[in-house]
């Protein structure tokens, strides 16, 4: 069979898949609403931003620079909220270890320690270092606090003021952090599930036998199903990013083309994984259980909802075996940091390896199936 005829067959299969999916009216809603609902519930539910966070400011300085700084922190109202972000308590003459104990006790989410000579040094244009302690058990809040403080110092007093932070995670606001990963997660879940269901379902209904009896190669069947997924998932991603930016005001700093590139490579791997899992399961129910075994850990271990830096080492190692980890990272680098190809090259290479491995595995297992 020549390539033209192979592609024609793939096209026929793809069109069939689209006809089938668009007729499942009830499926349309979750298909497009699921990721948005996730962002809204997790984003706002888990604290899209933080409000009235208790912060202790240890200010041993009596100058004007420090008091205006403290005032600025106290009056800040975040982008996605309408309430002040911090509720400040003042004290002085407190050492770092004592301040840590306050955080241990859950009294404050963060402690900012301003040195005695802060105002003096700022006035003289000398470098000065502040210490920021955060409650690392609450990664969401601490990430947001750290990020806020960094931006504050970058903006107000120039590069001379530096911040000493015991541990660092979190970039921008939580919704910005969450959205790129939810898109990757949605593409991953959606692809694995719908590919697997389509194949397990066709096997259960016996239609796969009929298709395989026609002069169509297994490659053309797989390619047709893959093309269908690529188009569907890219459409979902575009709608989702537009929805998140328009409705939720999430930032999209990077290139749409790069987002598409990452998602295309990622979808290939996910299609392969879906095919492989459906090939080794006897029916729809076993596929469902098997796919949950793969997708659920991905959801929680790969840093969709919280930064990977906050998980224990063993979990981080598990995360590095999952393609979603690298897709999340690449999506964040593009969408949040607005970086280009050079910054996602490593993630992309790893994703390509995953894609080749899973797609190859899927094709191999599907071959032996009928």
């Amino acid at each position, binding site marked *: 069979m020549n390539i033209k005829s192979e592609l024609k067959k793939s096209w*026929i299969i793809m069109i069939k898949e689209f006809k*089938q999916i668009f007729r499942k009216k009830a499926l349309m809603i979750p298909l497009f609403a699921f990721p948005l609902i996730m962002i809204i519930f997790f984003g706002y539910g888990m604290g899209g931003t933080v409000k009235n966070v208790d912060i202790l400011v240890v200010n041993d300085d009596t100058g004007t620079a420090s008091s205006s700084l403290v005032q600025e922190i106290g009056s800040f109202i975040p982008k996605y909220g309408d309430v002040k972000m911090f509720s400040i308590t003042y004290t002085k003459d407190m050492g770092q270890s004592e301040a840590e104990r306050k955080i241990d006790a859950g009294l404050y989410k963060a402690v900012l320690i301003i040195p005695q000579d802060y105002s003096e040094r700022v006035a003289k244009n000398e470098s000065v270092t502040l210490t920021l302690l955060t409650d690392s058990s609450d990664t969401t809040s601490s990430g947001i606090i750290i990020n806020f403080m960094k931006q504050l110092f970058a903006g107000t007093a120039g590069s001379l003021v530096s911040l000493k932070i015991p541990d660092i995670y979190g970039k921008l606001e939580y919704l910005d952090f969450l959205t790129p990963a939810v898109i990757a997660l949605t593409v991953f879940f959606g692809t694995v599930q719908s590919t697997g269901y389509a194949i397990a379902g066709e096997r259960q209904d016996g*239609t796969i*036998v*009929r298709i*395989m009896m026609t002069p169509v190669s297994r490659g053309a069947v797989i390619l047709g199903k893959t093309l269908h997924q690529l188009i569907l998932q890219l459409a979902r991603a575009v709608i989702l990013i537009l929805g998140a930016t328009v409705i939720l005001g999430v930032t999209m700093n990077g290139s749409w083309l790069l987002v598409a590139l990452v998602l295309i490579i990622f979808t290939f791997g996910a299609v392969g994984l879906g095919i492989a899992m459906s090939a080794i399961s006897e029916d729809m129910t076993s596929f469902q259980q098997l796919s949950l075994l793969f997708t659920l850990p991905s959801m929680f271990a790969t840093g969709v909802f919280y930064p990977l830096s906050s998980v224990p080492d063993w979990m981080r190692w598990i995360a590095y075996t999952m393609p979603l980890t690298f897709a999340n990272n690449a999506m964040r680098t593009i969408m949040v940091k607005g970086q280009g190809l050079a910054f996602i090259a490593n993630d992309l290479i790893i994703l390509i390896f995953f894609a080749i491995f899973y797609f190859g595995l899927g094709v191999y297992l599907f071959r032996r199936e009928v």
Partner: protein
Amino acid sequence: MEPIIEVRNLTKIFLSRRAKVTAVDDISFDVNRGEIFGMIGPNGAGKSTTFAMMSTLIKPTSGSIKVSGFDVEKEGDRIRPIIGIVPQQYSLYSDLTARENLELMGNLYDVPKKVMKERIEYYLKLVNLEAQADRFTGRFSGGMKQRLSVVSAVIHDPAIIFWDEPTTGLDPQTRQAIWKLARKFNTEGKTLIFTTHYMEEADKLCDRVAIMNVGKLVALDTPQNLKRASNSASLEDVFIHLTGEEIRD
């Protein structure tokens, strides 16, 4: 008589829970061009396995099958376009219409657009589904599904039709219609091979009947000759005589 299918020393061994199960045990026979060939046997006799091997769905462990001169193991790509298979399950896309199901099969079989359009109209009329052409098949009755399933298998005008239990679970009217359809295909020159549990069906319809039992071919002849040889009034008696009264699972 010219053979269209040649089965030689065919054996299929499955591995089931690490035990070897011989489903088909060294059988040889020919199916002649243009005949209606029936395969009967108790459950587990190996007829479905033989059927699946002849239609390229599974590979033999040893022995050979030639379909229209092509080897099933090496030349499956040459065989598939000239055979049509009516699976036991109706195997239709429930979220596509009757017409779309036929179009899908026609497209995959590379049937030219114009020819396909005519054939679809012809077959829908033939099986009395014209009025239901644009309805989703998910809502069809068993009989309607079976009729559509049959025409889905012949949309590319195959020389050989493999038909697995054509009338199981169907009402008498649909059964009669299916038999009529089978005879019609046969008079058009197509070779029909089917499996069945109904002796009456085999008796009425088949030119020759192969009786299988525990993987072996125990008899192969015309229904009349089979009855005569065992001095039985019905094919059912021949069947029980050859395969025993024990119930198989």
